[in-house]
C-alpha cells in the first residue's frame, strides 16, 4: 500500500512537466476555440483572440486551481509545509538555534561513538564465517592462558578430526629493513595453512600457501595494511619487493586487509611458521610459544571439539610422562570474542551514554515544542477556523521538527567528519581493529535513522497534544489556553522526570567509572616511572649467537651511556613491566619441597636483567643483595625474586641463600641461588595484582634464551630530570655500536603507565562528558517547565500576592513542585541505574558497581544542581508585580 502510494507520488512527480504541458495546451486550445466562435460572430481574428483571453482571465490562477483539483500533490504540499515551517522557525530564532545545537551535539556524539562501535564491533571480520573459528590456550593450574610448544601443536594438528584445520601462531618481532634504516616491527609467524583456515583474502597480492611452509621454501612475508600505508605510502608496486627480516631476505607477496587482527598479537608482518625447519620441532619439552586457532567442521560443536582435544591432551601426557605436566586443560574461546571481548562492554557503555544524551536532548526539545504548541494554540485554532484540517496541522508540526532534526543532523555529521581525527586521537591506540576506522554507509544510514527518530521524538508529543485538545476552546478562551494545558503540563512533568532519571543513570555511571579510575591510578605499579626512558630494540640475527656477544653489546652500551650527561643509571631487561602483549614465565621448584603433583609446579614471571635494572626503575631491594657485574658465567648462578615468591614459597624461612630449580632451558631445570628480594611489580597491567617475579642476570642467562632476547629487549635509562634530546642521544649510542640494530618504540615509562590507563581514561572522559551534557539538559528541562508554569500562572501568583501571600510562600510552592519532579526522577533513575549496574560491573576497579557512596554523592550533586535550576526559575516569580500581572488581561 505504501509502495503503491510512493509509486503514485513518483509518477506524479516524474510526470509533472508532462502534466503541466498538457494543462497549458488544453487551456490554450480553449482560448482558441472560444476565439473561433467569436470570429464566426464577425470579429477579426486578433480581436477575437484578445477578447477570448480577457474572458478567460488569468491562466496562472486557473492553473493553480486545476493543479489542486488534480490532487495528490504530496510533493507540492510538502514543499508548502517546508516553506511554512521555515517561516515559523525563523520567527523564533532562539528556539530554532537551541534545538539545532542540541540535536547537532546529540546526533554528532551518538554517530561518532557509533562509528567506533561500527568499526570495532559491527564490521565484518576479515575472516570467513568467523563464528566457526576457535582460539586455543593451554590452561595451567596457575594460568588459564598459556601457549603450546611446537611438537605439541603438530600433534594436535595431526590428530584432531573436529577441525577443518588447526593453525599455529607465534609472535615474531624482527628487525625489518629495505633501503632505509632497520625498523623493529611486531608481527607473527603463522602456519601457512592459517589463511585457508581463517578464510582471509589478501588486500593485494596473495596470502600464504602450503608451499611457503615447506622446508627450504623461498622466504616470503605479508605486510599489514598499516605498515603498507606507513612505510610504502600504499604503493601497489610493493608486491615482489625484497625486504630484509632479521638479516634474512624475504619477498613481499601480499598486503593484508585493514580489518585483519588477531587476539593480543600485532600483525604488522606475517611470515610462514615453517615448523619442520624449526630446531624445536623434535624437542618435546621445548619452549611454549604457539597459540592455536582452528575452524570447526560444520557438523561439530565446540563442546565436541573440546572433548576431542582433551582426549588428545591426556594421550600425550601418557605418551610423554613428565613433559606436559601442569597443562591441565585446553581452553577454547571464540576468536572474535577474544579479539573484541574486553572492549565490548566499554564501547557499548559509551555508545548508550551518547544515545541517552540524544534522548534527553530530544525530550528537552519535545518539552519546549510542547510549550510552544500551547502558546501557539490560538494561532493553530485560527488556522483550523480558516479551514486547515487537524491532519494538516499535525503534518505542519512534524515538518517543523523534521526540519530541525535535519539541520541538527547535518551539523552533527559535519562535526563527526571534521572531528574524526580528534576522535581517533582520543581512542586508545590498542583498540582492536580501530586502524580500519572510516565513516561508511552503515554510519550514514544510522545517522539518517537517528535524524528520523529525533524528528519523531521531538515532534510527536506536540502533535499528539494537538490531537487531544479542543482548539475551538483555545479560540474562545482568548489564548489563555487552559484546555489542553492540563494534559500539556502533566506530560511535560513526566518528560522532565524522565530526563532527570536518565541524567542520573549517566552521572552515576560516570561516578563509578571515576572512582574506579582514581583507585586504579593510585595503584602502585611497583616501580618509579618518572624520568625513565625505554627503548625497545632487536639485535641482528647474525653476529649475536651466544650470550657473550649480547653481553659485549651491553658493555659497549653501558660505557657509552656513562659518557652522556644526566644519565643516572641504565640497564637491559627482556620484558618491560606493563607490556600487555608480551609474556614470559617459567616453572620452578624448591628442591626440599617438591610439589605433590607435577601439575602443581609453580610458575613465575621470568626476566633477564642487568644489575642496575632495579636502581633505574626504582624497584626497592628489600633483602639480600643486588646482582653485580661479577655474577657471570665464571661464578655460581644466582637469582633475585619478588616478595610474592618469598611470601608464597618461603613462608618458613628467609629465601636468601636458598636454592631453587628453574626450568628456563630446553633441557633439565637448573639450580640457582637466591641472593636478593625486590618489591612486587605489575607486569601485565595495572588491574591485575602483582604476580611472582624471578630475575636472572644477563651474564648468566642460558644459551637457549639467546634468540628470544636477541629478538626483543628493552634498554631502560633513568635520567636526572629532563635531558634535552635524550631520545636522539640514546638512539645514537645504539646505532654507533651497531647500525644494524633495529630500534623500535622509544617512550618514557610514564607513557607506558598512561597507556595502561588509556582505555579507562577514554571511557571516563566520554561517559563523563555525556553525563555532564545530560545533567545540563535535564537542569534546563526542569528550569523550562518551572519557568513555564510560573509564566502560565502569572495571574494566579499576582492574585495570591495581592491577597497577602508572602514571597516565601510563593517560593515554597514553586520549590515543592520542583521537588516532586526531582524526587520522582531520582527514584526512577536509581531504579534504572541499579538494574543496569551488572552490565558495567566488568569496568569497575576496586569499587562495587552498587557502591552506595557513589550513588549517594551522585544523588546529592544532581539534587543541588536541579534545585539551583529551580531557584533561578523561581527568581522570575519573585519579580512579578501583582498590579502589572492583574492588569495585563
Amino acid at each position, binding site marked *: 500500500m505504501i509502495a503503491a502510494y510512493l509509486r503514485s507520488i513518483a509518477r506524479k512527480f516524474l510526470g509533472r512537466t508532462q502534466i503541466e504541458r498538457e494543462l497549458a495546451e488544453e487551456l490554450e*486550445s480553449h482560448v482558441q476555440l472560444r476565439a473561433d466562435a467569436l470570429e464566426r460572430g464577425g470579429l477579426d481574428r486578433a480581436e477575437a483572440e484578445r477578447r477570448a483571453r480577457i474572458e478567460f482571465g488569468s491562466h496562472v490562477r486557473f492553473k493553480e486551481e*486545476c493543479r489542486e483539483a488534480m490532487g495528490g500533490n504530496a510533493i507540492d504540499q510538502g514543499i508548502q509545509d517546508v516553506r511554512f515551517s521555515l517561516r515559523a522557525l525563523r520567527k523564533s530564532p532562539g528556539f530554532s538555534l537551541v534545538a539545532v545545537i542540541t540535536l547537532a551535539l546529540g546526533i554528532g556524539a551518538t554517530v561518532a561513538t557509533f562509528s567506533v562501535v561500527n568499526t570495532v564491533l559491527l564490521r565484518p571480520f576479515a575472516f570467513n564465517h568467523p563464528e566457526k573459528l576457535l582460539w586455543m590456550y593451554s590452561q595451567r593450574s596457575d594460568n588459564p592462558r598459556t601457549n603450546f610448544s611446537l611438537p605439541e601443536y603438530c600433534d594436535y594438528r595431526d590428530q584432531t578430526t573436529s577441525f577443518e584445520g588447526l593453525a599455529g601462531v607465534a609472535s615474531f618481532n624482527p628487525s625489518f629493513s629495505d633501503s632505509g634504516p632497520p625498523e623493529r616491527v611486531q608481527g607473527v609467524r603463522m602456519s601457512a595453512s592459517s589463511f585457508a583456515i581463517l578464510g582471509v583474502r589478501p588486500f593485494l597480492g596473495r596470502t600464504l600457501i602450503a608451499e611457503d611452509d615447506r622446508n627450504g621454501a623461498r622466504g616470503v612475508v605479508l605486510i599489514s595494511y598499516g605498515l603498507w600505508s606507513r612505510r610504502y605510502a600504499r604503493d601497489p608496486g610493493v608486491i615482489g619487493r625484497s625486504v630484509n627480516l632479521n638479516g634474512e631476505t624475504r619477498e613481499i607477496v601480499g598486503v593484508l586487509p585493514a580489518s585483519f587482527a588477531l587476539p593480543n598479537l600485532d600483525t604488522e608482518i606475517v611470515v610462514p611458521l615453517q615448523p619442520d625447519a624449526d630446531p624445536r620441532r623434535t624437542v618435546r619439552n621445548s619452549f611454549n610459544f604457539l597459540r592455536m586457532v582452528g575452524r570447526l567442521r560444520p557438523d561439530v560443536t565446540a563442546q565436541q571439539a573440546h572433548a576431542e582435544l582433551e582426549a588428545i591432551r591426556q594421550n600425550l601426557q601418557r605418551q610423554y610422562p613428565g613433559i606436559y605436566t601442569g597443562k591441565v586443560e585446553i581452553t577454547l574461546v571464540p576468536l572474535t570474542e577474544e579479539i573484541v571481548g574486553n572492549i565490548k562492554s566499554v564501547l557499548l557503555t559509551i555508545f548508550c551514554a551518547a544515545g541517552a544524551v540524544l534522548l534527553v536532548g530530544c525530550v528537552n526539545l519535545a518539552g519546549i515544542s510542547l510549550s510552544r504548541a500551547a502558546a501557539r494554540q490560538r494561532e493553530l485554532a485560527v488556522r483550523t477556523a480558516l479551514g486547515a484540517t487537524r491532519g494538516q496541522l499535525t503534518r505542519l508540526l512534524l515538518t517543523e521538527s523534521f526540519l530541525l532534526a535535519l539541520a541538527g543532523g547535518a551539523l552533527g555529521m559535519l562535526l563527526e567528519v571534521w572531528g574524526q581525527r580528534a576522535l581517533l586521537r582520543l581512542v586508545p591506540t590498542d583498540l582492536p581493529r580501530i586502524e580500519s576506522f572510516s565513516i561508511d554507509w552503515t554510519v550514514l544510514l544510522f545517522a539518517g535513522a537517528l535524524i528520523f527518530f529525533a524528528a519523531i521524538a521531538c515532534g510527536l508529543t506536540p502533535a499528539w497534544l494537538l490531537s487531544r485538545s479542543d482548539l475551538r476552546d483555545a479560540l474562545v478562551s482568548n489564548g489563555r489556553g487552559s484546555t489542553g494545558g492540563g494534559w500539556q503540563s502533566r506530560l511535560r512533568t513526566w518528560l522532565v522526570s524522565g530526563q532527570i532519571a536518565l541524567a542520573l543513570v549517566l552521572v552515576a555511571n560516570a561516578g563509578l567509572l571515576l572512582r574506579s579510575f582514581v583507585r586504579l591510578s593510585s595503584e602502585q605499579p611497583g616501580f618509579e616511572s618518572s624520568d625513565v626512558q625505554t627503548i625497545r630494540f632487536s639485535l641482528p640475527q647474525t653476529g649475536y649467537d651466544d650470550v657473550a656477544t649480547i653481553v659485549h653489546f651491553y658493555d659497549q652500551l653501558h660505557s657509552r651511556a656513562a659518557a652522556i650527561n644526566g644519565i643516572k643509571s641504565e640497564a637491559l631487561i627482556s620484558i618491560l613491566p606493563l607490556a600487555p602483549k608480551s609474556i614470559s614465565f617459567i616453572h620452578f621448584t624448591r628442591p626440599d619441597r617438591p610439589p605433590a603433583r607435577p601439575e602443581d609446579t609453580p610458575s613465575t614471571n621470568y626476566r633477564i636483567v642487568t644489575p642496575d635494572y632495579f636502581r633505574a626503575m626504582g624497584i626497592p631491594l628489600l633483602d639480600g643483595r643486588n646482582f653485580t657485574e661479577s655474577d657471570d658465567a665464571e661464578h655460581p648462578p644466582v637469582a633475585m625474586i619478588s616478595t610474592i615468591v618469598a611470601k608464597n614459597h618461603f613462608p618458613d624461612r628467609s629465601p636468601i641463600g636458598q636454592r631453587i630449580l628453574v626450568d628456563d632451558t630446553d633441557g633439565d631445570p637448573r639450580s640457582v641461588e637466591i641472593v636478593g628480594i625486590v618489591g612486587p611489580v605489575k607486569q601485565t597491567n595495572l588491574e591485575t595484582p602483582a604476580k611472582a617475579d624471578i630475575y636472572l642476570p644477563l651474564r648468566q642467562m642460558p644459551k637457549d634464551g639467546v634468540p628470544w632476547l636477541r629478538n626483543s629487549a628493552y634498554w631502560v635509562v633513568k635520567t636526572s630530570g629532563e635531558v634535552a634530546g635524550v631520545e636522539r642521544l640514546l638512539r645514537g649510542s645504539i646505532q654507533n655500536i651497531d647500525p644494524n640494530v633495529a630500534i623500535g618504540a622509544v617512550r618514557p615509562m610514564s607513557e607506558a603507565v598512561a597507556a595502561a590507563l588509556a582505555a579507562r581514561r577514554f571511557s571516563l572522559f566520554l561517559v563523563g562528558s555525556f553525563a555532564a551534557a545530560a545533567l545540563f539538559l535535564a537542569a534546563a528541562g526542569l528550569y523550562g517547565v518551572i519557568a513555564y508554569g510560573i509564566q502560565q500562572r502569572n495571574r494566579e501568583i499576582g492574585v495570591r500576592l495581592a491577597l497577602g501571600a508572602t514571597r516565601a510562600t510563593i517560593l515554597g510552592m514553586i520549590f515543592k513542585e520542583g521537588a516532586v519532579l526531582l524526587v520522582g526522577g531520582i527514584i526512577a533513575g536509581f531504579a534504572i541505574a541499579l538494574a543496569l549496574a551488572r552490565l558495567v560491573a566488568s569496568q569497575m576497579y576496586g569499587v562495587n558497581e552498587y557502591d552506595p557512596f557513589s550513588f549517594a554523592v551522585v544523588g546529592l550533586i544532581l539534587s543541588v544542581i536541579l534545585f539551583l535550576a529551580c531557584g533561578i526559575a523561581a527568581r522570575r516569580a519573585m519579580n512579578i508585580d501583582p498590579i502589572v500581572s492583574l492588569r495585563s488581561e
Partner: protein
Amino acid sequence: MNEEAELLPGTLDLLILKAVSLGPLHGYAVLSRIEQISGQRLFVEQGALYPALFRLVRQGLLKTEWGKSENNRRAKFYELTAKGRKRLQEETDWWKRSAAAVTAALAARPQQA
C-alpha cells in the same frame, strides 16, 4: 424578466456530467453544450470549468483523450466512465427528489383553519 439563472451551488458537476453524457466533448464544447441544453439560461464561468473537470477526472467519473475539434484544432475530449454514468443517475435522482420537495413546499398555500 432576465432569462439567465444563477448556477446553484453543487450543480456544476451534475451539469458537466449531463453534458458529457450526450457524447465526448472538449472543454469549450462543455460550456456551449450546457448553455445549449439549458436553453441559453445557464452560463458557466470559464475559469470554474477546468478545476471542476479535473476534479471529476480525479474522481474517476470522466476520462480524457486528445483529439481533433470540429474545426480541426487539437483538444482534449472528456468522456463519461461507467462510474460517471452511475453517478449521473444518482445525482439526477437526488436533484429531482429535492427539486420536487422544494417545489411542493413552495406550492403550499395558507390553510383555511
